[in-house]
């Protein structure tokens, strides 16, 4: 290897071993490499977007052409959205959206208010059994929801809580709180804590330093964590499907049990419209905060 090929070839993101005998060959090779990466990247994008695209296309297709299977928009109509949002067929998507929003906000706020202190301690303070405590919280986040459902079903039946909002909010804290603590801890570890020290040197107590210096700095981290907790609550199905009633059911349950005008005919186009309604706000939210969400997911997030 006499040709160390200079920094140009070395930094090429490539997979091929650069053995450039002439300049031209190396150039062609790199172009090849670029094309191959491009094709693979396209596969990834299509993988992620095609099924979603299909949902959107179908949601705008006339119900008579449900199985048209043309890959672009045909027989365009807004009717499916009207059907999805109407309450005439026994569905109540608007109500379910409000329920999901309410439950999600409650779960997120409770988890944040409680979890933020634990995360601060885990990231900042030195104490005995720190590893054990973090391990317990992590284990809690991997806890199977199905192990909670039986005793809760019996308990809530006995005390008359079946189908109430609190019966949905309390179990969801079991996964939202560990998620919150873990994500926040990892964000807090990365913050510029020197500023806290500076504040303390200037005469703040630890509590004051937390409130006046750290909290404003931590706001973006807290906000990202809130989004992750909210999404995890919004997507929950197992517990809600068992403990909710028609009045309190969230969107996931509403969509799973969506009924059409014909008893044995699945109203596909309306369901796709309902799915689009549920998903689009989430996707907008996720795309806006993309970078931070990825950071939160990979650093602390453990839930899919």
């Amino acid at each position, binding site marked *: 290897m006499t040709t*160390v090929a200079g920094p140009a070839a070395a930094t090429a993101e490539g997979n091929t071993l650069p053995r450039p005998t002439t300049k031209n060959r190396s150039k062609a090779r790199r172009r090849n490499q670029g094309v191959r990466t491009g094709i693979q990247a396209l596969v990834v994008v299509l993988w*992620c977007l095609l099924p979603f695209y299909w*949902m959107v296309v179908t949601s705008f297709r006339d119900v008579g052409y449900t199985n048209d299977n043309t890959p672009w928009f045909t027989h365009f109509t807004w009717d499916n959205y009207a059907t999805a949002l109407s309450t005439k067929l026994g569905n109540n998507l608007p109500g379910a959206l409000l329920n999901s929003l309410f439950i999600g906000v409650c779960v997120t706020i409770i988890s944040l208010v409680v979890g933020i*202190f*634990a995360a601060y301690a885990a990231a900042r303070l030195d104490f005995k059994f720190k590893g054990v405590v973090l391990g317990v919280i992590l284990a809690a986040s991997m806890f199977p929801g199905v192990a*909670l459902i039986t005793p809760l079903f019996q308990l809530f039946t006995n005390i008359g809580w079946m189908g109430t909002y609190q019966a949905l909010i309390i179990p969801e804290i079991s996964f939202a709180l560990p998620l919150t603590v873990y994500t926040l801890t990892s964000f807090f570890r990365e913050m510029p804590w020197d500023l806290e020290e500076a504040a303390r040197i200037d005469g703040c107590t630890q509590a004051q330093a937390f409130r006046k210096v750290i909290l404003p700095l931590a706001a973006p981290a807290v906000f990202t964590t809130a989004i992750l907790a909210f999404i995890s609550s919004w997507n929950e199905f197992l517990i809600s499907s068992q403990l909710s009633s028609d009045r309190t059911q969230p969107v996931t*349950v509403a969509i799973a049990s969506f009924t059409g005008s014909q008893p044995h005919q699945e109203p596909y186009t309306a369901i796709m419209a309902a799915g689009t309604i549920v998903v689009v706000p989430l996707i907008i939210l996720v795309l806006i905060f993309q970078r931070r969400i990825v950071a939160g997911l990979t650093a602390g997030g453990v839930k899919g």
Partner: protein
Amino acid sequence: MSTSNVVAPSSTSTGKNGRPPIRAGAKRQRAQQSRWAFYLIIPTLVLLAVVIGYPVVSAIVMSFQKDAGLDPATGLFVQGGFAGFQNYAHWLLQQCQGPNGTTISCPPGNLGSTFWSAVGVTFFFTVTTVILETILGLWFAIIMNRAFRGRGFVRAAILIPWAIPTAVTAKLWFFIFSVAGVANALIGARILWTSDEWASRFAVIIADTWKTTPFMALLILAGLQLIPEDVYEAAKVDGATTWQRFWRVTMPLLKPALMVAILFRVLDALRIYDLPQILTGGGGGTGHATTTLSILVVDQIRQGFNSAAALSTITFILIFLVAFIFVRFLGTNVVRTQEAQQKGAK
């Protein structure tokens, strides 16, 4: 981190609050930190004890009680009472209660007789989806780790399957897999994807792989980004081929992050409920082709709490054992790897 904490006050604030000399101060500060940490963490632990600890303990208590019901011999309604390991034997050994308190093997159609089938289905889903998601996720992550125009777009697109609720994903694939749907149109067949025994299992696997591979890719990508560029440079200079670089450099360095990602996925896959429940109606095929342990627990709840509690406890122990094997024998250190990732991310 902690050292800077201890040193800093000594230089400036010795006199101010009448602080004792450095060493005692350090000790006191540590004690003070521990007290603070206790107050800050206790609400979280209490809340977790209420929402997780209480149900788990009460599930275990319930699992040793008999379900109230009709006595098969007398036809009279009887209260539960202590059951010993009867509920566990019901699931693990397919033992049902016969007349006069005898034990008979469960008749077909009884949920007890589907236990081992549910265990098999759950582990089958777990193994196949995690293998597929790991291989594809690794591939996705390697692509995203390269520098190319439009990388930001790919990284945004990858979040979309993750953001779609599983319930919606299930309905979407239910439509794709309908008899006259696009999946059959593409392959030119008329497969009953949501009711045939094996087709319905593959439908669940395909839908789950679609939804979760991107998440896996993100976790693996975070691990890839920790591998310093110069290691590859060195391997290149030494004449390693692409293939060698992947197996001898990337894989060993990626292993801790990869193992954590796989552990999380395995634990998540073992409790799969939403997809098979919605996509194949919790059954598929002969009625139990896609019945996982979680689905079986939910089916059992309305037929007897205590028996369901025993089943959910078995499920919980199974998942716990798998996690234990991972951490103990495969050397997956979750907390340490995550801390390393966070340090690397800085």
